[in-house]
């Protein structure tokens, strides 16, 4: 948890998860498994907790900065779905760890879900411990999501089996289908919970957050779900070997994601570094591009720009002054707002041409190209094609030209006042509103 705000945003989720954990541990502690099965239950629980702990250690960062621990999530899901009654002579004992499918009393169901939650919690916490020791912090909201989805999957799957009433030897596929269904729903629940947290953390609209979350998680989540189901299906027959064996494809997936995330990060890093070119050459003030990009992204998020478009906005904001490089001489102070509109426009077009040359940043180029266009030229009609991102950069750029690196609240509020004078002519009112809200919040926190 980075700060209070993030903790507060995840608050309800954390409380719900904590309640579930307390209840589960209580039920698990009180449960009395039949003596013959009890040692099996312990061994299996331990194995899964260990697996989840290892998976937690091997966590990865997805492109776009999300953290996940695919192996741990797959292990959690597998344990939640572990039927224990596939194959009468299976390694996991004749009765399975939660009794036969005929015995589906409420108590049994609760005990199964409670054990799953307990094991997942223990495994995750143990696995997160080494990280916490080196000060990397625990991902509490992710843990909470895992606990809740585990409970959900466990509670959904068993009644589903009762409805389907498969004969284990004849209709094993029904069990597989039920598992897949439960896993898919659990995955969706996970994405929605993640979106809720993210929306309130970053003040973006919930709908945008859900779409972003699905886009970001669809790939890895389906691999996690498939692996979880596979382990749950194969473990009764293969025994503990199923855990490492079925982890291999997921590891491969994980590896590919890691490489992708690395190159993605490198790409952003490169654009950021190269955006310093204008500053190093004295064309713009130090830190200008980065401040503009940070603020532009905040405004964009507040206005519900999707994550994918935010990336383009960030690139465009970082490189919005790159056209100045083609000028024979730097503009004094680099303040593009102070030069004639015609020149501003030329800088924008030159910059767009340079960016377009890359062949892969067309969206950013389009944004940069129109960054100097007024919102409503000569009280005329609005241009529906003027990208929101361009309007954002225009306002934020003007704001930063006025404020610079200054931290004075007065200066910031004055700058907003100046922008408000140009609202509806130069600047998009909605953008200036969002910007004003953000700056107000910043200055409030400053006191």
């Amino acid at each position, binding site marked *: 948890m980075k700060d209070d705000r993030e903790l507060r945003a995840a608050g309800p989720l954390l409380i719900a998860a904590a309640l579930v954990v307390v209840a589960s541990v209580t039920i698990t502690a009180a449960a009395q498994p039949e003596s013959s099965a009890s040692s099996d239950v312990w061994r299996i629980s331990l194995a899964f907790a260990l697996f989840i702990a290892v998976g937690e250690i091997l966590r990865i960062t997805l492109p776009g900065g999300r953290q996940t621990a695919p192996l741990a999530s797959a292990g959690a899901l597998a344990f939640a779905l572990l039927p224990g009654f596939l194959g009468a002579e299976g390694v996991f004992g004749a009765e399975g760890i939660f009794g036969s499918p005929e015995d589906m009393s409420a108590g049994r169901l609760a005990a199964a879900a409670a054990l799953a939650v307990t094991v997942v919690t223990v495994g995750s916490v143990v696995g997160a411990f080494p990280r916490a020791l080196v000060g990397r912090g625990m991902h509490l909201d992710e843990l909470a999501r895992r606990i809740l989805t585990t409970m959900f999957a466990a509670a959904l799957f068993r009644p589903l089996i009762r409805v389907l009433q498969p004969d284990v030897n004849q209709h094993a596929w029904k069990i*597989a289908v039920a598992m897949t269904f439960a896993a898919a729903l659990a995955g969706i629940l996970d994405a929605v919970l993640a979106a809720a947290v993210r929306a309130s953390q970053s003040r973006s609209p919930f709908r945008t957050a859900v779409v972003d979350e699905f886009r970001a998680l669809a790939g890895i989540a389906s691999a996690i*779900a498939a692996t979880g189901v*596979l382990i749950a299906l194969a473990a009764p027959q293969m025994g503990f070997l199923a855990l490492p064996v079925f982890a291999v494809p997921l590891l491969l997936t994980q590896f590919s994601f890691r490489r992708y995330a690395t190159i993605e990060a490198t790409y952003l890093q490169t654009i950021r570094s190269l955006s310093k*070119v204008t500053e190093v050459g004295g064309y713009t003030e130090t830190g200008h591009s980065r401040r503009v990009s940070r603020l532009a992204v905040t405004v964009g998020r507040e206005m519900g720009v999707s994550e994918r478009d935010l990336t383009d906005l960030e690139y465009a904001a970082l490189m919005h002054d790159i056209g100045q490089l083609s000028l*024979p001489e730097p503009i004094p102070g680099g303040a593009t707002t102070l030069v004639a509109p015609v020149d501003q426009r030329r800088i924008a077009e030159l910059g767009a041409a340079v960016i377009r040359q890359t062949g892969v*940043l067309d969206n950013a180029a389009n944004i940069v190209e129109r960054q100097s266009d007024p919102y409503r030229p000569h009280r005329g009609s609005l241009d529906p094609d003027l990208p929101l991102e361009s309007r954002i950069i225009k306002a934020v750029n003007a704001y930063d030209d006025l404020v610079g690196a200054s931290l004075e609240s007065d200066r910031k509020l004055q700058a907003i006042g100046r922008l408000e004078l140009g609202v509806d002519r130069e600047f998009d009112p909605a953008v200036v509103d969002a910007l004003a809200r953000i700056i107000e919040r910043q200055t409030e926190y400053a006191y």
Partner: protein
Amino acid sequence: MRDLPIRSRLYVAAVVVVGMLVLVVGIRNVAIGDLSTVLILATLFVMMNFLKSPLRRGVAVREGIDISVQMPISMASVLLLGPFGAPIVAASMALTPNTPWFKRLFNGGMAAITAWVASEAYLRVGGHPINVDFTFSPRHVLLPVIVTALVMELVNGLLMVAVIALTERVSPIRVWFGTLSESAFPMFIYSIFGLMLAVVWSYVGPISAALVLAPLMVARWVFAQFAARQEAYEATMRSLIQAVETKDAYTRGHSERVSRASVLIGRRSGMREDRVATLRYAGMLHDVGKLGVPTLVLQKAGRLSEEEFDAIQQHPSRGREITKELEFLGEAVEGIHLHHERIDGRGYPLGLKGMEIPEFARIIAVADAFDSMTTTRSYRGARSVEDAVLELRRCKGSQFDPDLVEALVEGIEVDGWDATDTMPSDLPVALPGASEIGVPSFGSDDDDPTAARQLGIGGPAGAAAIPDDASELDALMDVSGEERR
């Protein structure tokens, strides 16, 4: 087919005939109960064939990251179906789209034979067929699967190597080690995936295919994204570097060539491949600091003020400033920073001597000078490679690291050198600076060691005054710039 020599054609025909035989025997003997499995697996196999790999071939090979989804299916069919069913599934390889008919037939035949031999091998080494009654045991499943994977690799490899060797008339052993040995490790992993597929299939049927293949498909998709990003990355770098070169009209393609020459030197002096990769970026970015120099200064004809002069000399430091946060560049950052240092300590910005200068910087210095000499500049035409080499050798030990000069010379002797511009040359950016102050401007860097000598101001005292003459200035920048600091 027509371009194949007769012996290759005969060979292909033989493989197809044997493959057909295996297929026919399989169809006649396959158990009725297995038919649905055969059908589903074959359909899946064909579907995967149609799902073209999202990776562009070149990228996939370069990165070694193409992920096959067919191989696990082949292995699973061997384990589930045995010597009669497996060849039928494998033969559906012949249905690969967009392939000439004889290639399809050959691939189908080859796949059928491989599947048959592999199935026999699996049973011979004591493998238990995977079916409803099967129980998992390392000795009767895992070990035989590993053996089978090796056999598959071997048979498939032999059949493939033979056709290449016959057609190209090269030694089969060379072909084997040249192309196929790399696939052994993935093959092993894929066999394990095939085993998983078979095991789960025996429990729950076809839905297992979706479950086992999902992570693979996702991985494959992500690798494709990765590869696309990688290309995007290179393209972005390239065009931003071009932006530098547009400012300085005489250096078009310079960065790219310096990068190439640096790589040549690096390889020649036995550098590890990962360092060579970094060196490539270093060469490409070595002049990135010039982006920060006002165009007016870079293109100014005539006398430069003290300030303007400094502005140009700062480009290595600015390059460092710009690139220092790029983690992947590693030692390249110092290479960029110090590429104007000289072995005798009279370079800039720090005036380091000899081996105090990092290897990357020493390499770029040689490559930079070489390219400056062999391309046209405002004050002279391009010199021949021979002249440039003579000049580099002359400056060995004073300006350049002798070993690296020799490495470049050897590299050029072996690989040749192409001084032409490899980048697209028409950048659509209209340069306001150029039109306002009037081209032609001149390359005012510069790295050409001959310029100074021609003007006779190479010595320590020669650069005391700011010259009026453009080419004189040009010379000053290069050789004795450091005395001005």
